[in-house]
C-alpha cells in the first residue's frame, strides 16, 4: 500500500502521531501500535535525512511508543484478579491524543473565526486632541480626608496652646507686683541719695510685661505715698525717690 506523508513541520509529536493515525484510517480507540510506531520512527528518520532538526520531544514520544509496543506483546490477562492492573497500555496515550485533538480542532475553529473577522474593518479614532488639551479639572475631596486634616490641625493647635499657657503662667509667677514693690523698695534703700530713674528699674528686663508690672508697681507705691515721682518734661526720665519717713529712715 502506498500512502502519502506530508513532510511539513508538525506542531509537535502529537500532531505527527494524530496525522499518522488519521492517515492510516485507524480508530484512535484501537491503535495498531506496532504499525504506527514504525511509521513514526520512519518519519523521524526521514526528517533527519533531510537535515530537518528533530526536536527532542519527537524522540521522547518515539520512546514512549516503543515501550507501549513492547508491553502490548505481553499477555494481557494472566489470572482474573490482576486484570485491573494490566489495563490496556495504550489508555494513557489515547487520552493524550484525544486531549490534543480537542484543541487542534479548537484551533481550526478559531482560524475560521479569524478568517471571518478579517472581512470586517474598524475605523481609527477621530482626532480628539482638541479635547485632550483642556482637561476637566475637578476637586478630589474626601470627607474623611477633610475631617482628618482638620482634626490634625486642631490637635496641633491644642498642643501649641498648652505650651503657650504654661509659658505665660511661668512668666507671671516670676514677677508679681508685690515682688516688684519689694524689689524697688530694697533698691531705693540701698541707693545713696535714695533716688533712681524708671529706666534704672528696666535695665535688666525691658519686656513689655516687666515694663507694665514695674510701672503699675510705682503707681501703687506713689498711691500709698511711699515714693515721690517727678518728671521734668514730657517723655523725659521719671525720677523715683523714697518719700517721708520711710525715706528719712532709709
Amino acid at each position, binding site marked *: 500500500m502506498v500512502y502519502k506523508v506530508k513532510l511539513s513541520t508538525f506542531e509537535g509529536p502529537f500532531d505527527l502521531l494524530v496525522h499518522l493515525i488519521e492517515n492510516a484510517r485507524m480508530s484512535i480507540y484501537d491503535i495498531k501500535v506496532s504499525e504506527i510506531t514504525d511509521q513514526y520512527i520512519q518519519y523521524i528518520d526521514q526528517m533527519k535525512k533531510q537535515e530537518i532538526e528533530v526536536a527532542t520531544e519527537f524522540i521522547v514520544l518515539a520512546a514512549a511508543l516503543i515501550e507501549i509496543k513492547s508491553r502490548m506483546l505481553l499477555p494481557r490477562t494472566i489470572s482474573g484478579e490482576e486484570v485491573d492492573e494490566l489495563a490496556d497500555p495504550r489508555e494513557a496515550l489515547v487520552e493524550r491524543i484525544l486531549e490534543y485533538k480537542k484543541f487542534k480542532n479548537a484551533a481550526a475553529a478559531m482560524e475560521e473565526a479569524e478568517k471571518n473577522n478579517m472581512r470586517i474593518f474598524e475605523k481609527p479614532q477621530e482626532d480628539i486632541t482638541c479635547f485632550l488639551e483642556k482637561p476637566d479639572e475637578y476637586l478630589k*475631596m474626601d470627607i474623611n480626608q477633610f475631617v482628618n486634616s482638620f482634626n490634625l490641625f486642631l490637635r496641633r493647635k491644642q498642643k501649641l496652646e498648652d505650651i503657650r499657657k504654661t509659658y505665660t503662667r511661668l512668666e507671671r509667677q516670676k514677677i508679681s507686683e508685690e515682688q516688684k514693690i519689694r524689689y524697688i523698695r530694697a533698691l531705693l534703700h540701698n541707693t545713696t541719695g535714695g533716688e533712681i530713674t524708671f529706666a534704672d528699674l528696666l535695665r535688666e528686663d525691658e519686656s513689655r510685661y516687666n515694663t507694665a508690672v514695674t510701672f503699675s508697681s510705682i503707681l501703687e507705691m506713689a498711691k500709698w505715698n511711699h515714693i515721690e515721682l517727678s518728671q521734668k518734661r514730657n517723655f523725659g526720665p521719671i525720677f523715683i525717690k523714697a518719700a517721708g519717713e520711710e525715706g528719712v529712715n532709709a
Partner: protein
Amino acid sequence: MSSNKVIKAAFESMMFTWGEPLDVKLAADVFGITSKEAYDIFNELKGEYDSQGRGIRIREINKAFQFVTSPDVYDYIERLCTPSKQKKLSQAALEVLAIIAYKQPVTRGEIEAVRGIKCERVLEGLENKNLIEEVGRSPGIGRPILYGTTDMFLRNFGFTSINELPDIDDIESVVHEQDEEGDSSQVTFNLSQGNMK
C-alpha cells in the same frame, strides 16, 4: 446589477473605511454605475441619516461624501473625550475650608485668629474654586466680610445640608480659648507717661 439596498450598504462601509471624503466617481466604479447614479444613491442615503436624526451624518464635499458626527450631539462627544484631572486641596486650604465650614459665617480675622497665620490668598483660592462665598458683612468694626461654604462644597461630599458634616467635639473648646487669648493679647497699656503728671 446590485440592488439599491446592497449599494447603499456598500457605500456606507466604503465611506466608513475610507475616512476621507469618498469621491462619487470612485464609488461608482466599484459597481460599474454612472457617477450620476452613484451621486443620487449617496444623496438618498444622506437623507435617510438626516431624517432618522442619527448621531452620525453624511456630508457632501464637492461630489464626495463622508461620514461625520452630528453637531447636535457635540456636547456628549466633548464630555466623552475630555480627560479629567484630579486636583487636591493644599493642607492650608483644607484647614481654612474646615474652619469656615464649622464656624460659618466667619470673618477673615476670626479665621486668622484660629490659625495664627494670614489667609487672604487661601480665601481667594477657595472662592475661585467656588467652595466658599461671601454671605454678608459682620456688624463689627470695618464691617468685615463674612464667609460661608457653597452648594458646590456640599456637593463635593454628597451632602445636602451643612448639618451633615461630621461632628468635631473639640472645635468649640479650641476655638473658644483661642478667642480669649486673642482678646487678652489685644489689651494695650494706653497710659502715656505725660498723663501722669
